[in-house]
């Protein structure tokens, strides 16, 4: 399964990783080789085989609705690349309210 440069760029964008032209070429080759390898799973007949999504047969792990102290604002913002003492700061985003 070969991955074209266009597809690599698309995946790069979806992964939010900026790729140089050189990287697109390099990754295109490497990822194609890996995808070809993993394609061998097609040899296996998995009809009727239930996917194993959870490693354990554990269910219903719940927590009581009791508050515990978390971090102070200073601690929360302490590692932030940019902050103003109250908030995290990021470059201006044009469609604020889209998160609501």
């Amino acid at each position, binding site marked *: 399964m070969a991955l074209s440069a266009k597809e690599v760029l698309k995946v790069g964008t979806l992964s939010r990783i900026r790729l140089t032209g050189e990287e697109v070429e390099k990754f295109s080759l*490497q990822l194609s080789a890996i995808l070809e390898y*993993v394609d061998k799973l097609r040899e296996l007949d998995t009809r009727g085989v239930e996917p194993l999504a959870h490693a354990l047969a554990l269910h219903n792990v719940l927590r009581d609705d009791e508050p515990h102290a978390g971090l102070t604002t200073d601690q929360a913002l302490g*590692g932030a*690349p940019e902050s103003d003492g109250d908030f995290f700061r*990021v*470059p201006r985003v044009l469609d604020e309210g889209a998160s609501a």
Partner: protein
Amino acid sequence: MALTDLTACEMRQAVLERRLSAREAADACLAAIHRLDTKVKAFLSVAPENARRRAAEIDRRLAAGENVGLLAGIPVAVKDNMCTADGQPTTCASRILGNWRAPYDAHVVQRLTAEGAVIVGKTNLDEFAMGSSTENSAYGATRNPWALDRVPGGSSGGSAAAVAARMVPIALGSDTGGSIRQPAALCGVVGMKPTYGRVSRYGLVAFASSLDQIGPFGRTVADAALLLQATAGHDPRDSTSVPKPVPDYLASLEDPVLPLKIGVPREFFGEGLDPEVGKRVREALAVYERLGARLVEIALPHSTDYAIATYYIVATSEASSNLARYDGVHYGYRSSDHTDMIDMYMRSRAQGFGDEVKRRIMLGTYALSSGYYDAYYKKALAVRRLIRRDFEQAFQEVDCIMGPTSPTPAFCMGERTADPLSMYLSDVYTVSANLAAIAGISIPCGFTAAGLPVGLQIITDVFSEDRLLRIARMYEREADWAQQAPPLAKEAV
């Protein structure tokens, strides 16, 4: 004999009997690190002041007759993908975490402290635990103490090398596809991956959530058992942590498991296995036969190539998701040359992540993306069930499964970095245990003619670590390779 030649169990005994102070133990290890680590480069960060302060506190409490815990004053190293709030950075060997200091301790770190251990430093790894050689670290590669031009294995290469070089007696690593067992084999030490859910993942920086487990390194099986004892057990902060009681691993360690039926998968002895590795492993199996065990040839039809393929879809899918949070917004590295918000994400991640991490994120994103999910991710999960069934069937017939941990001994630095796929195949015997969530251990079983360590892998069913350790101990009693130290560790102090 130097203090650093003592095993953790011996050190613990000496400290409890007041023949050795915690301070002396810490000093000895710090001196060894100082002497050796410029060559081995196992540590990303060393904390002498913290260590000495902790050791002094333990000595004080011992003098007052207090119970200081299971690990009484033993110096310990922690792989740098586990959060420590002691002032040391937690880097995951990546640039993307920048100067981040974790504001909380991982569960296992809290356990170490509660049991009286002295954390001396954080060890090197492949970036975000993605790799099999520790060459993917953003801060330089760790060397194999047995041959400095060779890799220690990965991703927990730093912890394995630190223990092999006798800089610390025990260390914690993490294993997602073999990242404890494979470096243990390449460095000639004991390394164990417990059953999934046996040890809490809270505070372990996630790579592949359904596969990651924290486990112990030690030079002996007893040392690994001691460290596992101190860190295993339920944690309500980890929903995948299992509320099963932890048995006393040390109490039963000397009881051999007999009768013992050992499954030997033909798939683990096929193409790609180095002949010398194969020989050493068969010699170890012969030792078990001499002890009364019976070897049974079994088939694990999905456990090698298919397991690797499954692993590199499941693990990378989960990784692409777990690493999405590294974006320069709330913590870590942020680019300085971006033009807008999206560009900030794109550049921070491009500049902060190494190539292997980028490859895996992209692979995982691809496998989960619209149109490909069924063909890749869903398919891989179905094969995962087949792999699990292989083991379920095998364990109905045999008590454990044995084979080589790694197809080759330690390879040379740079040998596989140009071809990612060739690197991935280093995990061919180890990934299936992670996919099936079962327990596995690697113990030293000899050397190649060139003096490189070889590891024997033993795998048992879920939540049977006590039996796994007992089975491993049976061999170790007959052939104690741990006595041999790499030449550089024997150099004049």
